[in-house]
């Protein structure tokens, strides 16, 4: 085997190695060459207490996506960014609710699809239900209510 053949095989080996490293980096990083297979929408809540990046997004108890970001807007509303698969088509009548798994479980976002016009990526859901505040409910109903005293 002459020097030229050895160099050719070494070159091929290096190229295969580089391709493997590139493939691994893409898989680990979740990058896509031909666009993402996910899209994001936002939902505006008066309270998103307990919802964090990574929280589940469910429809009928089935996990369909993930909370990507939770931030505050200029009106002090909580803006929750939801990441959903492209295969999931929602409509503009969809209602987003903050729910709790069990009594003291994790908070997650439940989507209730309606029957309206299709939702475009980047749409902001304003029809939302914030989490029920158990402490507030107890103080208002079980302990006689704080509102009556203040009214």
């Amino acid at each position, binding site marked *: 085997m002459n020097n030229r053949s050895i160099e050719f095989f070494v070159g091929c080996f290096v190229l295969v190695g580089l391709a493997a490293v590139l493939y691994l980096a893409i898989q680990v990083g979740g990058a896509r060459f031909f666009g993402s297979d996910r899209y994001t929408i936002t939902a505006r809540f008066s309270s998103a207490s307990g919802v964090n990046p990574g929280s589940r997004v469910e429809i009928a108890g089935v996990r369909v996506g993930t909370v990507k970001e939770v931030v505050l807007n200029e009106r002090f509303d909580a803006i929750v960014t939801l990441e959903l698969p492209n295969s999931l088509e929602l409509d503009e009548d969809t209602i987003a609710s903050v729910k709790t798994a069990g009594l003291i479980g994790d908070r997650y976002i439940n989507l*209730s699809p309606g*029957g309206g016009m299709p939702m475009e990526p980047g749409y902001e859901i*304003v029809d939302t239900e914030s989490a029920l505040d158990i402490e507030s409910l107890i103080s208002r109903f079980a302990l006689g209510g704080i509102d*009556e005293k203040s009214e």
Partner: protein
Amino acid sequence: MLKYLTKAILLLSLIWGASSVSVSAEEAQRAKLQGTIDAALDVIYSDCCASLSDEEKQAKVRQTIEASYDLDVIIRRAIGRNWGVLSPREQGEVLELVKQLVLKAYVKGLKGKGRPQVTLGEVTTTSEGRMEIESKIFLDGKTFYVLYRLRKMQSGWQIYDIVAENVSVVSNYREQLDDHFRKGTGAELITRLKELLQQDEINEDTKI
């Protein structure tokens, strides 16, 4: 210079005009909602309607509400994607029965109770063509917070959801109707609604 100044004044007037139109639209909807709520409560509590039967009161409340808002909007939204499951005849029948049920619950629910005081609060434009009106209801020494969600449609501004104490009426009924349609049909829903209408007691525990 004068030309630029004129243009700037014109632009400012347009911006001011647009914002005042938006503010007046919000105020107009607030006044319309307050008027409708007061008129509906008058049917139950004012002396002029005291001699009316429950059925007559229901009809009068319906007439009052339908003069301002289309009840179909909120009911259709609660039915959601199951709307297509119903035949055109069933769609009409379900709309009518749900309306009767809601009005019966309203009249029966307030019977024997003191007149609730309803105070409308801040009006917020949530997105283009959508607004929310906050309200406080004082009833029998308790305060309830209710949010009215309105949307601009071809027929004008319509209430498309009511959120009582953070619980959406549409979401609540959509959940119940989804459960029904998972195992039942439109005909069975109509039968169930007719059964509910026959019952004397309709309260918060009543389920579809």
